């Protein structure tokens, strides 16, 4: 049992998996000698060499498109997109090709690959180094979308993603890379895709989140405990396929739900969570389904006073829960 940061969990898992399965290659911008701009691939180039750890040209569509071909011809690519904000040049390859290969070929071909991308705000990254992009991908049938929030889950989920037979988007929150540490067993455990986790039990209100917001939800729950508000926290972990059972059971129990996401509010991923609850848990609801989200502006602004204005935080979550509990 060792303690790792989230970035160490990513790095060590990539190394473990590459030792286990020589079909795995890592490719992307600066993933080689430099070890990635966040050092997520640090050391891999030295251990596995330039054929399995490829520095690509500055061409995201190529990174994904070539990964598709490599997967078709027997490899297990784990491409890195340097920032989630820069995944859009590859959007067509991901949506039209990787996600549809199995369905359109009636199961003749598939694209087992894990696309890693750092995402999220609160890091002075401004509009183009702070985005939460999960809503775009969680809407796409054929993709799986994972957002870990602890080093333990990161190792377990990244193993499951790499071993999965379908394309997985694996989003890592930049702010958690070094700020979040936790115990990780040295065993070859996995955390299954499609399984949410109740990270705190409570009676009054369910708070649903993922990634950094799953942590903020727990902090908000702490704040409210003293006030006698009992909060249950559900960390979704996988956005697609979604663990509807855990979600419905929790809200079925508490009757109230706050959905938290960092992305822009309108049409964000949490809207689907609210829609599911309004449709399937209606009989159990004792109050409106409340969303605490980023505002509807094109991106996280840079100056710290503007960035603070944008980011959801434990206080905002607590405020919403407080009012919903009193509803």
């Amino acid at each position, binding site marked *: 049992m060792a303690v790792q940061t989230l970035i160490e969990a990513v790095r060590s898992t990539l190394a473990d998996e590459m030792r286990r399965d020589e079909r795995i290659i890592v490719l992307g911008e600066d993933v080689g000698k430099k070890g990635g701009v966040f050092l997520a691939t640090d050391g891999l180039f030295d251990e596995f060499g330039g054929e399995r750890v490829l520095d690509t040209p500055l061409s995201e569509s*190529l990174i994904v498109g070539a990964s598709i*071909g490599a997967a078709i011809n*027997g490899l297990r690519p784990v491409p890195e997109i340097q920032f989630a904000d820069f995944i859009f040049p590859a959007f067509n390859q991901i949506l039209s090709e990787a996600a549809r290969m199995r369905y359109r070929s*009636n199961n003749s071909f598939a694209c087992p690959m894990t696309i890693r991308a750092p995402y999220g705000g609160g890091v002075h990254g401004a509009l183009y180094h702070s985005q939460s992009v999960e809503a775009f991908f969680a809407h796409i049938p054929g993709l799986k979308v994972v957002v870990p929030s602890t080093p333990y889950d990161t190792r377990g989920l990244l193993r499951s993603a790499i071993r999965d037979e379908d394309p997985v988007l694996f989003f890592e929150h930049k702010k958690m890379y070094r700020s979040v540490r936790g115990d990780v067993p040295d065993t070859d455990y996995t955390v299954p895709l499609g399984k949410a986790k109740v990270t705190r039990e409570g009676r009054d209100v369910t708070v649903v989140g993922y990634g950094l917001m799953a942590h903020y939800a727990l902090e908000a729950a702490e704040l409210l405990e003293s006030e006698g508000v009992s909060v249950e926290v559900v960390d979704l972990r996988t956005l697609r*396929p979604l663990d509807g059972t855990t979600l419905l059971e929790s809200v079925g129990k508490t009757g109230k739900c706050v959905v938290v996401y960092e992305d822009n509010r309108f049409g964000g991923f949490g809207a689907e969570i609210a829609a599911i609850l309004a449709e399937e848990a209606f009989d159990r609801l004792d109050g409106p389904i409340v969303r605490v989200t980023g505002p509807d502006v094109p991106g996280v602004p840079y100056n710290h006073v503007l960035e603070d204005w944008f980011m959801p935080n434990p206080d905002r979550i607590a405020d919403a829960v407080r009012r919903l509990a009193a509803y």
Partner: protein
Amino acid sequence: MAATRTESKAATEIGAELGLARDDLLEMYRLMVVARAVDERMWILNRAGKIPFVISGQGHEGAQVAVTYGLRKAHDWMVPYYRSVASLITFGMTPREIMLAQFAKGNDPSSGGRQMPGHYGMPERQILSLSSPVATQLLHATGIALAAKIRKTDQVAMTYLGEGSSNQGDFHEGLNFAGIHRLPVVYVVENNGYAISVPMALQSAVEDIAMRAAGYNMPGVVVDGSDVLACYRAGRDAIDRARAGEGPTLIEAKVTRLTAHSSDDQHTKYRTAEEIESEKGRDALPLFRDQLRSAGLLDEESEAAILEESRKVVEDSTDWAEAQPEPDPATAQRWVYADAPPARMDDELWTGARFAGDGGPFGTLAAEED
């Protein structure tokens, strides 16, 4: 660049130089004849209202058969596009398999009736499934070649596209990467002068797409698509280079589109009657036939036999394919993933209304199936 042509020697002589036996020459001709017959039948079926859509390769067959002929079946990879009818037949796809795609039957090996006609693909033949957005397949061929190099499989990947599609960003990104890593991939641009209605002058700043090869450190070969043996040489040389580890090649075959872009297009709107008529002179099929005739490889009889055989093949494949069962809608939700349900682990497929508790933990109303 001047398009390479073979000199006016006898086909047999040129063939010999190229290592093509008389049987190879006849086989190439046969493949062209079959491809044309299958292709023409598609259009007849469309006009007869039996299939709603056709997109095919009439005018491209000479280049397609010849460039492809040097590949190793079921070893090398073919990454086709929607006009690749003759390439596919050359690489082993049968007229029956092609006709199943036209009728979109349940046992259509390309997609089980899920895709439009023209979107071919078969794993057992190493023919990659094709989508509609153009040029995306170049990156797949590039990645296949990357894996072939890393895994040392001695495979070559050949991919095909139109000249219009070579103006997509993916073309640039793919060729650059293949050039950097000297990948065993051959890019074949079938230049028929139009992207639907848009003529070369408005599509590309240069007349020859092959000129771009120099920017990716690979040979760019322009070849006359009506000269079958010149196309074979270009394909063979590129395949040899790729297999020898000498890297990728960009081949541009100047071909002609004898039909409208597709059954949805009226090309008279942007092509003159004269042009449409004169373009028939660039059809490789009669030209190659004449070559084989004057080389004494074909006579009235053998020619008629080939035609008759191809007619039979087309009859058989059409009737057989048409008689196959439609896909079963009950299977339509399958294969979004290998193992998981389409969107939620607790999912059934909801095409209709999902109510409070339908299939969920708080059921109050029963779901009606639709």
